[in-house]
């Protein structure tokens, strides 16, 4: 097991290096370079820009800039925002809880709902329920989520006035859990839509695969009741692809969170990203890119280790 974890850790290193290379490369693509915000500002003199360049180390050769930036990344120095000069990592970490709350609640809804629909569909394959569920899942995957969000605001916030249309708290009610939950409903619904569909599709096929194995037939022949068979035998065996899905899905979860957060003004990382985009806050943009990428790499690593814990065969291959 330790060997397996070590091997997976080793495999994550090139990903991390590759990720920083892509991130750094993208930053060079920025029009006007990383200092566009200064170079495009007419009130700043050429000499000032030269001075800023030296402060940021931008007069040095490109590979040295990269090394400096990458080592900073791993030592916690993620640079400073153009506006306000705050440490980028602080700005990001400030927004992390809101995003985690949204992703967590959406993922919980999606797993519970998607798994039940998927398992039921697999058990009652080709039934009316199954056909409706698989068709519905494909529909859900095709919905433009942002439009779905707009429609949700239109129906539940504007027409029915059941729920708030955006934000995280009512003004002056920061810290009120009830207000938070009310605000959480619509973004969760929007983010959960696509993930639920993915989960139901995957769990359906994972269970279909398991249900036709010999050991399931043996369990049935032994006279084991259906629910016990499902819990004792099917679940542990279908868990592997589903844990893998958890890891693979992380980038999509971030993408979805960004969409939901922009529609509902949810003050998380996705919202921060879109705001930073509008203000050309390159350090924040790059920080967010790297933060999500590292998050995804670690997430996949954990998923792989979890799979190895569930299935001893994985460790050896």
């Amino acid at each position, binding site marked *: 097991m330790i*060997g397996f974890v070590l*091997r997976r850790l*080793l495999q994550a290193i090139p990903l991390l290096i590759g990720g920083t290379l892509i991130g750094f490369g993208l930053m060079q693509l920025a029009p006007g370079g990383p200092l566009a915000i200064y170079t495009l500002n007419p009130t700043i003199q050429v000499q000032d820009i030269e001075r800023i360049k030296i402060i940021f180390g931008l007069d040095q050769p490109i590979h040295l800039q990269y090394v400096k930036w990458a080592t900073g990344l791993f030592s916690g120095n993620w640079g400073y925002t153009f506006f306000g000069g705050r440490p980028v990592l602080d700005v990001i970490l400030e927004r992390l809880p809101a995003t985690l709350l949204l992703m967590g609640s959406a993922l919980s809804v999606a797993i519970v709902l998607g798994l039940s629909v998927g398992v039921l569909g697999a058990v009652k394959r080709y039934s009316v329920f199954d056909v409706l569920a698989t068709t519905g899942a494909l529909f859900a995957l095709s919905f433009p989520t942002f439009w779905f969000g707009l429609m949700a605001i239109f129906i539940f916030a504007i027409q029915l006035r059941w729920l708030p249309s955006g934000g995280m708290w009512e003004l002056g009610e920061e810290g009120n859990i009830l207000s938070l939950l009310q605000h959480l409903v619509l973004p969760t619904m929007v983010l959960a839509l696509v993930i639920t569909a993915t989960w139901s599709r995957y769990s359906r096929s994972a269970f279909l695969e398991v249900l036709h194995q010999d050991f399931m037939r043996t369990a049935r022949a032994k006279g084991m009741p259906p629910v016990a068979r499902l819990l004792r035998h099917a679940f542990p065996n279908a868990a592997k692809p589903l844990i893998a899905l958890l890891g693979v899905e992380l980038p999509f979860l971030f993408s979805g969170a960004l969409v939901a957060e922009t529609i509902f003004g949810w003050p998380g990382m996705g919202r921060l990203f879109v705001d930073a985009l509008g203000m050309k806050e390159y350090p924040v943009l790059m920080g967010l890119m790297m933060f999500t990428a590292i998050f995804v790499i670690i997430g996949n690593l954990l998923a792989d280790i979890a799979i190895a814990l569930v299935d001893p065969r994985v460790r050896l*291959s």
Partner: protein
Amino acid sequence: MSEPLLRVTGLEVHFPIRSALLRQRIGMVRAVDGVNLEVARGETLALVGESGCGKTTTGKAILRLIDPTGGSVRFGGEDIAKHGSRALAPFRKRMQIVFQDPYASLNPRMSVGGILAAPFEIHRIGDAKDRGERVAELLRTVGLPPEAARRYPHEFSGGQRQRIGIARALALRPELVIGDEPVSALDVSIQAQIINLMKRLQAELGLAYIMISHNLAVVSHVADRVAVMYLGRVVETAPREALFFDARHPYTQALLSAVPEPIPGRHRARQAPRGDVPSPARPPSGCHFHPRCPIAIARCSQEAPEARIIGPGHAVACHLVTP
């Protein structure tokens, strides 16, 4: 003696075994381990052995479909074992291959005409019209109608597909064709047709064949000479008659005892080798055959036997065989 068409000397194909973690080499599979062979113009050499003995790998290494890790492959007097693809190009025309599985050896997305025109396209021979005529000619040669060019491989039966494979191999007028179990995937009734076709073409075109087979019975119909392989090495080479009536290597004898007797009334004692074929990753020391050999002595496990000539064209690699 003049140089034969093909002379293979000390041919080796070793595949590294790598570890999962750091991909460092932790072993070697000696698929082909010092093979010597000769093929004269117009003759048929059968290369025989159980599956996994390296006979197909030998064939593919001669054709340079697999890169040999050692030894030489002299074709028409020139060693091509280390040629790059450019230097190899003229030799590609001179030796060809017919595969075992007629379903996998034809590109399912190409028409038969496209498949047969490919050799001319690759070697820039003729124009489109000329190639069309050549394709029709090839189809006639292997007994298929010219209209077959417009159809796709899946529309043909296994035997017909094998004819197409033979036609492709003959397109560039090769001097040597390697048949890698060319009939073993076919129905028995079709096998004879294909073998007869190949024999007829050999007579008409003066081809030399290397027929790779696990089946001594098939070999007895076509071969002039037979080479028997075991775990990457040739253990016995002999003219057909000598091999069938005077096999000397214990392994050859064991193989022959498994062949149904072609002459009624004659019976050989069945002496299948003991145990299983060992892994070529960890072959036994000395003579590879010694753990399964009924007559092995102490020396066999220590020293690999050299091939010794014991009769006209008859060579055996066994410590216990004397001329």
